[in-house]
C-alpha cells in the first residue's frame, strides 16, 4: 500500500497529487476540461476546510466529493437546453456513456457508490479503498462486486461496451 499523502505533508505538498485525482474522476464523469477543473478546485477547496480532521487519508474524501460534485453538475447541465453552436455530442464521443454512467452511479446505494467511486473511478487498489472507508478488504470486494453488477445491469451490458469489456476473441 502506498503511503498516504497526508501522513506528514501539508496541504500544499499534497495538492498536486490530490488535484490530479480529483480532475481525473471529474473528467471521467463530465468529459469537459473546464468543468472538470472547476470541480477539482471546488473539491480541493472543501478538503482544505477539513484538512485538520481528514486524518491521514484525504484521497477517499476528495474522490467522493469530486465525484458527487461532478454528478450534480452533470445533472444540472442536462437540464440546460443544448445550444446549436456547441453540440456536446460532437465534442465528446463518449457523451452518452458518461450520461448513463452518472445516472447509474447516482442510483447505487451509498456504500456501493463510495466503493465504485474509489475503486473504479479513481483506480485505487482494494486495500487503499478499505483503508479510506474504514472497512475490511473483504467488504470492499463485496461492495465492488455488487456495485459493478448493479452498474452493468443498469447500463444494459449488451449495449455498454467499454474498452475493457470481456470478450472472447476466438
Amino acid at each position, binding site marked *: 500500500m502506498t503511503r498516504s499523502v497526508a501522513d506528514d505533508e501539508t496541504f500544499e505538498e499534497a495538492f498536486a497529487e490530490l488535484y490530479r485525482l480529483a480532475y481525473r474522476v471529474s473528467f471521467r464523469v463530465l468529459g469537459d476540461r473546464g468543468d472538470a477543473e472547476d470541480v477539482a478546485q471546488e473539491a480541493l477547496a472543501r478538503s482544505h476546510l477539513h484538512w485538520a480532521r481528514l486524518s491521514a487519508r484525504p484521497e477517499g474524501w476528495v474522490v467522493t466529493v469530486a465525484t458527487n460534485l461532478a454528478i450534480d453538475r452533470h445533472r444540472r447541465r442536462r437540464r440546460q437546453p443544448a445550444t446549436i453552436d456547441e453540440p456536446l455530442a460532437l465534442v465528446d464521443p463518449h457523451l452518452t456513456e458518461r450520461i448513463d454512467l452518472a445516472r447509474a452511479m447516482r442510483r447505487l446505494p451509498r456504500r456501493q457508490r463510495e466503493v465504485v467511486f474509489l475503486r473504479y473511478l479513481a483506480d485505487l487498489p*482494494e486495500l487503499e479503498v478499505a483503508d479510506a472507508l474504514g472497512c475490511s478488504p*473483504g467488504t470492499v470486494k463485496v461492495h465492488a462486486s455488487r456495485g459493478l453488477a448493479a452498474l452493468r445491469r443498469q447500463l444494459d451490458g449488451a449495449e455498454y461496451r467499454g474498452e475493457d469489456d470481456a470478450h472472447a476473441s476466438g
Partner: protein
Amino acid sequence: MLTHLDDPSPPEPSAGALGAVLSRAARLRRRRTNAVLATVAAGTMALGVVVGGLYVPRASSAQAEIAFSSQFGLLARGTLVPPSDLADVVFLSPDRGFAMAVHGSDTLLASSDDGGNTWRVVDPSLPTGFPAQLEFPDRSHGYLWGGAPTSSGSVPLWVSSDGGRSWSQAPIGPVVSDVSAIESGVWAVVGTCPVSPAGSAPSCPVVVEVSTNGGSRWSPTASTPPVEENSSLSISDQDIELARISAQRAYVLAFGPDGQGGPASGRIAFTSDGGRSWASRPDPCPPSFSFGQQLAASSTADLWLTCASQGSAGAQAKALYRSDDGGRAWLLAAAANAPVLSSNVTLDGAGGFPVGGYVTPYSLGHENLAVVSSADAWLYPDRSAVFETTDGGRTWRLAPGLARAGLVAGASGNVVFADATHGWVCETGVGLWRTTNGADWKRLGP
C-alpha cells in the same frame, strides 16, 4: 476500467490552480462562518420550544446492505444465509459445500447439504477474513489461510476438525502461501520469512509442510523445492502456488514480475514421491507474462498452466499452455495479447483467450480455472465473465447458459466443479449458479 473516458492530456496542477483553490477555501470559510452565526441566532430564538426525541444510533448502510434477515452482530449458528450473499464457495461433492460470506465486519462460514440451494451459518466469525482461501477435503476437516497478514507479518493456517465450527492455528509458518488437501494428507507451502515492506527482503526459501492427521502435527518434506518466495510482495500478490495432482505428485510454482519470484529457471518444481525429491520443470511463460500463474490438471499427465501480465484498466495479457507429459514439454494453446501490458511481447495463440478480466494473482481467494477433462474447462477472470472451452483450451467463448440464467458480467467470483458435470459459479455478493450437466445453469436461492 474507464480509462477510455480520460482526458488524453490532463492539465498539470499549477501554482495558479493552488492559489485558486486557497482563494475558494477562504470564501467557503467566510460563508460557513456567517451561516453558523445565523443558525445560532435562530436557535436562540427558538429555545424552549424544541421537542426532541431519543437519538437512536442506526447501523450503517453498508451493514444494512449485507445483513441477513435484518440481523446485526454475530449470527447464530444455523441462521439461513441467502446464496446472493456468498463471497466464495467450495464443494466436495454434488451436495456438500462450504462458503464464506461477509457480514458486517465478520467473515462467516456457511455450509450446504443440498447442492447450494440453502446455506446455514456454521461459524459466524472466522479467524481470518475474506478474501481468505478455504478448502474442505471431507465434511470434517477444513483449512483456512490467506487474507491480510498479521501485524508481525505472518499469514497463518487455521485448521478445523469439526466441520468448520471451531478453528485452531496450525503450528507452521510464518507465511502459509498455499494449501492442498487430498483425503487425510494435507500439504502447505510455507514462506520462511514474514511479509515485509516492499524492497526490504527480495527472496526467501520456502518449505513444504505435510500433515497426515488432519493438520494437528506437521513435518517438512525430506527435501525442499528449489524455489524462493518474494516476501516483500503484498499478500494480495501471492507468488507461490501449490498444485497437487495426487497424494504423491505435486507442483510448486514461484512467479512474480520481471526480476522477482526467484530465478528465471526452476520456477516450477515437481515431485512424484511425496516430496522426498524435487526436480525443476521448464516454465513456458515469458517473463512479462509471469505476474501470476495457476496450474490445474485433469489427470496425472494432463496439465493446464495459465499465466498473465500485470493487469491494468480491467485488461491483462494472458497465455494458456498445455502439457500432456506432466510438464516436461509445453505447448501454447491460446493467448490474449495486450502488448502495452506485456513489454510489447506478443504470443502466437491459436484461438483466443479473453483479454478482459484478471487471472491470478489479482484474484486471491478465488479459483479462476476449473478443468473438468482434457477438453473441457471453465475460466472466470476477476471483473469479467465466465468462459468455457470444449476443445482443450484452444478457443474460449462466453458461457451462454450463465448469461441466460442472469449472471452479470463485470464482477468478481469463482468457478468450482465437484465432478465433470456438477459445477457452481459464485458471483461475490451477487448470486450463486449451478449446473448439473455441465451445460445448463440455474440461479440458486430466492
